[in-house]
């Protein structure tokens, strides 16, 4: 990378709070999401899905649906004889002129099944005599095997050993905009409005699934209502929508309903581990031996990092993926980390109690050394002071009455970082600037940071930049996942706008009687370095372009972003030991994030991450009936999410580290809140609950068990 393109030492915009450019469109309802797209002659699609968790299709009769009023296309997605692996597995689809008629017609598709035995829980699936989840595949699959150091030595050094089983549950993404597309063909070319986290990736997947050149697919995602890792491909519903549109020779909109959204758009896998861990008398971790497992439903990939973050010199871990007859897992905001973090952090508090050490002190002793991307030790110290950790009582609130108060702490890490993204910039002779990049704004504020970075480079106000994103007609950018968007897009925009500025300076230099290398942009002017008076206002400078605009391509370059983040969170809760209800009172989230681009939206990411993790700890739970294999709560009244009255006071400390370049923070803040809450509950009631969620009945049962003889 040209060293002149590095981030400015004294930025005027970067790191400040800039309001979202599309805020007014979103607050007025003008913003058009995929769900809001309407095309002339548009039909509505509807999918017929398996009501059974495991079955074989013995017949499909589409004839009644074909004759239903308003129906324009009907297709079988699966063949007779196909095996179905979960409730909600797609089978057939219809398109009709209204949504209501599409629903009516879908009910007329007659499917007959041969019921097959199913497994609905990890324990059922792992049992010796378990029926197979899939006639052609075993119920478990060996995963990661790791061994470092010497376990025997480690356990010999241990003064105390804790051996317990810990677990987390399955939750869903619950995107408010359901998964779906609007597909429209013009001859052999497909235009698809897709609610996706990766428009270029969606185009590639459409091309592969439909057997057409990718150049014939255009994907548009101007606004999308949440993905959280579940929206990287068009999925079955997208391909079905495209096929229905082709069959009907009309545009088709196919958005899933809430029930389908719960059944067939991914979930965060469960995580279980039986862990034996040792600690020396002076509070050093010595050994860690774990058997872990988890389920991603009818798909593999239930792995998670374990042990998480802390330094066990001697450790062994063996993981097993378990299959059950339920919807397939997908990446969900910081895949694997919230699970690994909870399992390890609860254990950490148990170990700290064994050696009678303060949990913060114990963590500092066993955390990785300080580094720019590993700031835990400093954050523990700083956070303890800010949070009032010295007021924390030892495990078990000694005060009388049913409301017990407690504090907890936990830490997390994440990768993030940038990768290949391309951009295009046009500077017109009237001074207007358009920046094009095929990234997408999934709610994080990408559109705004594109404009901010361009404005910073060109010395213009943000309002002078027109950012164009969310369309495969713009240069390639990756999917918005892994907290990589800001660190991928910002450098690409920086490089491209600086190249464009070079080109503009070359055109203007003769008029100013100097070399282009002596010119720079700031305060809405192109001027001689160190002398703002010797220059031209932006618009006057652009007049020198005549009829030929500056039109420049550029790409992400190394040196403007980095990966690796660390964070620490503190929580304070109350637990009513008569009802089992947990209320979170306060959260402190300390997070490093490299160079902050937009402070306002960066803070929103942290708020959002903390609240999502609070939901994971206290409310959400994908409940499958053990006998029927049916999801009990595929809706939003029994699948619980926090509302306004459940939100605690949240304090955020963002550690701006501009020297590191841009590092994404969409995921890290959501990792450790749930563990901090669980440790605070433990501190409040003096009982260790080793599994999430902390639903009232589980809290009461744990207290009951403790009274009846203890949980160790």
């Amino acid at each position, binding site marked *: 990378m040209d060293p002149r393109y590095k981030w400015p030492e004294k930025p005027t915009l970067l790191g400040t709070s800039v309001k979202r450019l599309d805020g007014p469109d979103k*607050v*007025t309802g003008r913003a058009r999401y995929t769900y809001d797209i*309407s095309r002339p002659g548009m039909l509505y699609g509807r999918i017929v899905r398996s009501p059974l968790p495991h079955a074989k299709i013995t017949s499909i009769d589409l004839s009644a649906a074909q004759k239903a009023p308003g129906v324009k296309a009907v297709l079988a997605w699966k063949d007779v004889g196909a095996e179905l692996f979960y409730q909600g597995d797609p089978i057939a689809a219809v398109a009709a002129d209204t949504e*209501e008629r599409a629903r009516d017609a879908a009910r007329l598709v007659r499917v007959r099944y041969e019921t097959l035995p199913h497994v609905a829980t990890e324990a059922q699936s792992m049992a010796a005599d378990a029926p197979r989840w899939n006639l052609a595949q075993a119920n478990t699959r060996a995963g990661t095997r790791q061994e470092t150091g010497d376990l025997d030595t480690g356990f010999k050094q241990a003064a105390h050993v804790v051996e317990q089983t810990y677990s987390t549950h399955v939750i869903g993404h619950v995107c408010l905009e359901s998964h779906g597309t609007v597909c429209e063909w013009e001859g052999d070319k497909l235009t698809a409005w897709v609610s996706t986290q990766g428009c270029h990736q969606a185009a590639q997947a459409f091309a592969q699934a439909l057997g057409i050149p990718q150049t014939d697919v255009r994907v548009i995602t101007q606004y999308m*209502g949440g993905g959280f890792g579940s929206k990287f491909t068009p999925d079955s519903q997208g391909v079905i929508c495209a096929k229905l549109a082709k069959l009907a020779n009309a545009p088709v909109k196919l958005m899933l309903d809430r029930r389908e959204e719960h059944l067939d758009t991914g979930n965060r896998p469960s995580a279980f581990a039986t862990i034996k861990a040792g600690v020396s008398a002076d509070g050093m971790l010595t050994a860690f031996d774990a058997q872990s497992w988890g389920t991603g439903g009818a798909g593999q990939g239930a792995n998670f990092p374990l042990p998480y973050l802390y330094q066990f010199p001697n450790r062994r871990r063996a993981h097993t993926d378990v299959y059950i007859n339920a919807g397939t897992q997908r990446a969900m905001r910081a895949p694997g980390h919230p699970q690994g973090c909870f399992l390890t952090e609860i254990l950490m508090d148990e170990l700290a109690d064994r050696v009678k050490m303060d949990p913060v002190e114990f963590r500092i002793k066993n955390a990785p050394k300080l580094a720019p991307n590993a700031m835990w030790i400093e954050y523990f110290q700083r956070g303890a002071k800010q949070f009032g950790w010295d007021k924390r009582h030892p495990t078990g609130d000694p005060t009388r009455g049913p409301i017990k108060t407690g504090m907890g702490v936990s830490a997390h890490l994440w990768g993030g970082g940038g990768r290949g993204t391309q951009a295009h910039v046009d500077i017109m002779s009237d001074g207007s600037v358009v920046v094009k990049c095929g990234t997408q704004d999934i709610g994080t504020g990408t559109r705004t940071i594109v404009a901010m970075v361009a404005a910073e480079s060109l010395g213009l106000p943000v309002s002078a930049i027109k950012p164009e994103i969310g369309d495969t007609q713009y240069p390639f950018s990756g999917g918005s996942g892994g907290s990589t968007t800001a660190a991928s897009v910002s450098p690409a925009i920086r490089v491209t706008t600086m190249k464009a500025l070079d080109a503009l300076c070359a055109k203007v230099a003769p008029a100013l009687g100097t070399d282009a290398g002596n010119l720079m942009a700031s305060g809405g002017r192109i001027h001689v370095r160190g002398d703002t008076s010797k220059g031209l206002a932006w618009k006057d400078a652009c007049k020198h372009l005549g009829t030929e605009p500056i039109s420049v391509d550029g790409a992400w370059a190394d040196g403007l972003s980095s990966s690796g983040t660390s964070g620490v969170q503190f929580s304070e809760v109350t637990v009513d030991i008569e009802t089992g209800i947990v209320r979170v009172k306060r959260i402190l989230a300390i997070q490093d994030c490299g160079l902050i681009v937009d402070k306002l939206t960066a803070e929103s990411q942290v708020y959002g991450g903390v609240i999502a993790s609070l939901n994971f700890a206290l409310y959400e739970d994908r409940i499958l009936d053990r006998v029927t294999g049916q999801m009990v709560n595929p809706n*939003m*009244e029994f699948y619980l999410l926090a509302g306004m009255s459940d939100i605690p006071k949240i304090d955020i400390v963002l550690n701006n580290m501009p020297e590191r370049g841009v590092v994404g923070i969409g995921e890290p803040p959501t990792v450790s809140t749930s563990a901090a809450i669980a440790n605070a509950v433990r501190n409040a009631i003096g009982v260790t609950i080793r599994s999430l969620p902390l639903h009232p009945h589980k809290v009461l049962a744990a207290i009951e068990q403790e009274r009846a003889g203890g949980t160790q």
Partner: protein
Amino acid sequence: MSEKDDRFAVSRRDFLKSAGVGGLATAVTAAGAAEAEAQTGPRVVGPGDVPVTLMVNGKRVELRIEPRVTLLDAIRNRADLTGHKRVCDRGTCGACTMIVDGRTVYSCSTLAIDVVGKQIRTVEGLSTGNTLHPVQQAFCDVDALMCGFCTPGFIVAAAALLERHPNPTAEQARRGLDGNICRCGTFVRIMEATMAAAAKGVRRV
């Protein structure tokens, strides 16, 4: 009660009997139905399209829709006002919150034929030209939105709250917004925006 009202009330009853869709019984609906039946007895319309006139943001919207069409779907799919979203479809999440005769309703769980003759207000009716409603402006100022899908429902709920309680306590504001859910986690700033809008003053429209 006018003849038109009678007809719609009856068809709604027929709908409730036959369709078995959950979550339709808003307080307004139930009271209206009972009243209509007591006066006229059952008369069936539909299941085909029937003419329906809605007053949306002060403008007449003439539609021909099946009696089973919800207020939300009528406005979104037939009148192309797409600000409000269908998310839970069960009167739980509030993304479809509209104001009908001064009260907030879940429009996903309200039949269009039940709100004939009533004043319906949507998020599209809050701003005037390019001037945002104080609640909308406050949401933009403090970043009380991320993906934005729940935002129109929250904005309408907050605006309705401030029309009833111009200077709400924090507790009143929380209660007033408890019928809405955000998945991105913007709650802290939604509270901030609501209180900021209250401080600036919201006049009843």
